[in-house]
């Protein structure tokens, strides 16, 4: 959502008057627009005055229940995500990287779908075409991830790159399928590419090439043939890949099982 009129959504956003799709779309915009963020802060403070005007005397029973619950509730650590991540928070449990990634993928698909279906107002035919194309691409890219995530034995594992970045693998041995998503891996030198390997008893087996563009997240890599594999790794190889790894892995971790 990059049309100039997105800025006028500050009011609706501050009043929680956007539906879920638009809310997330706008939150993404907010991270890019400091002026909008400042205006939102002010308008929220204004909305808070409307709340204060509605203040009422809370019953003592509420105070007792709150304090009792507080006494047994652990506080979150200061680091980490901002406090307003409703969808993830609602999912409960640990916000692991892969859950985050899945949620982000789902959100992206939902937003694009909303635009296409006309839930979100689209100004021009061009915007609609763009959204349609984006949706098709996202669906194609994240379809395997979504399917795998639904498998009862799906397990996720994350490896950290020696020069930064993370690699997440979601695997189902029942389906004999896995999906790898890399984010923030350093861009390989010119003419080089990342190659993913399954490593078991014998020789490492190539499962595909990954081409992260800058800090962006590369499209997920889908592969099978998990039997016998214990670890998964990424090496930097000449463009086109190598039959066997020629460099030390930049990421190496246990295949989730």
């Amino acid at each position, binding site marked *: 959502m990059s049309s100039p009129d997105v800025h006028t959504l500050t009011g609706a956003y501050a009043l929680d008057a956007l539906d879920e799709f638009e809310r997330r779309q706008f939150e993404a915009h907010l991270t890019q627009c400091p002026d909008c963020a400042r205006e939102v802060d002010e308008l929220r403070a204004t909305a808070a005055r*409307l709340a*204060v005007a509605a203040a009422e005397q809370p019953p003592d029973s509420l105070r007792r229940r709150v304090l009792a619950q507080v006494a047994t509730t652990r506080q979150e650590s200061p680091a980490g995500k901002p406090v307003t991540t409703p969808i993830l928070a609602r999912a409960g449990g640990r916000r692991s990287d892969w859950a985050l990634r899945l949620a982000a993928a789902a959100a992206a698909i939902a937003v694009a779908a909303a635009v296409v279906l006309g839930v979100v107002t689209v100004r021009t035919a061009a915007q609609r075409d763009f959204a349609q194309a984006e949706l098709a691409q996202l669906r194609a890219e994240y379809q395997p991830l979504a399917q795998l995530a639904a498998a009862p034995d799906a397990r996720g594992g994350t490896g950290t790159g020696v020069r930064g970045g993370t690699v997440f693998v979601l695997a189902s041995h029942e389906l004999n399928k896995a999906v790898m998503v890399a984010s923030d891996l350093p861009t390989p030198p010119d003419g080089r590419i990342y190659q993913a390997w399954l490593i078991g008893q014998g020789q490492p087996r190539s499962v595909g090439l990954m081409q992260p563009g800058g800090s962006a997240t590369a499209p997920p890599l889908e592969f099978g043939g998990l039997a016998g594999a214990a670890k998964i790794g990424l090496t930097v190889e000449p463009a086109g890949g190598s039959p066997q790894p020629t460099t030390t892995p930049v990421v190496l971790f246990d295949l989730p099982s």
Partner: protein
Amino acid sequence: MRDSVWPLRRRDEQGERGDEHRDERGEACPATAEQLMLEVAKGDQTAFERLYPLIAGAVLGVVRRVVRDPAQSEEVAQEVLVQLWRTAPRYDPARGSVLTWALTLAHRRAVDRVRHAQAAAEREDRVAAESIDRDYDEVAEAVTANLEREQVRRCLGSLTTLQRESVVLAYYGGHTYSEVAELLSSPLGTVKTRLRDGLIRLRDCLGVA
């Protein structure tokens, strides 16, 4: 950015209740929500008990406006207040006052509750007819309670009708702007704009900086 509504309770009342802080010379002064929050963020339950009366009334009030059902409202208010405790270490003073933060959480949660709990259609039918006049009347009725209400009422009165109705339906009614547009039979774009310029006018009138 500080709310000029702060403190909700008059300072001398706070003092009597023992809600006070020592300044650097060891003299007693009332603790602000922001000062208390620093202690709450370190896990200080006593500080939370002192923070509670400063925010609970407004939290319950706004949830009640949106959710309506008293039992459910208390439930949501409880969730919000506990969430405030839980996430206190992540409170960022640069983004606004503690009160604003608490009320932002409260409104968001109240809205989530009604939007998920009730089928939109069912709600619209029931709420459409009654909302606007009643919401505004309720604000108007409540004025006598304190200066804050008086000021908010006066400033709401300074908006155009469409601005006021849009803001009130969205905030107190918990409606999305497309629902508001439908309720007011106005174009989407117009309502979107009215929400923003209405809030801006309200901000200026209330002196929110």
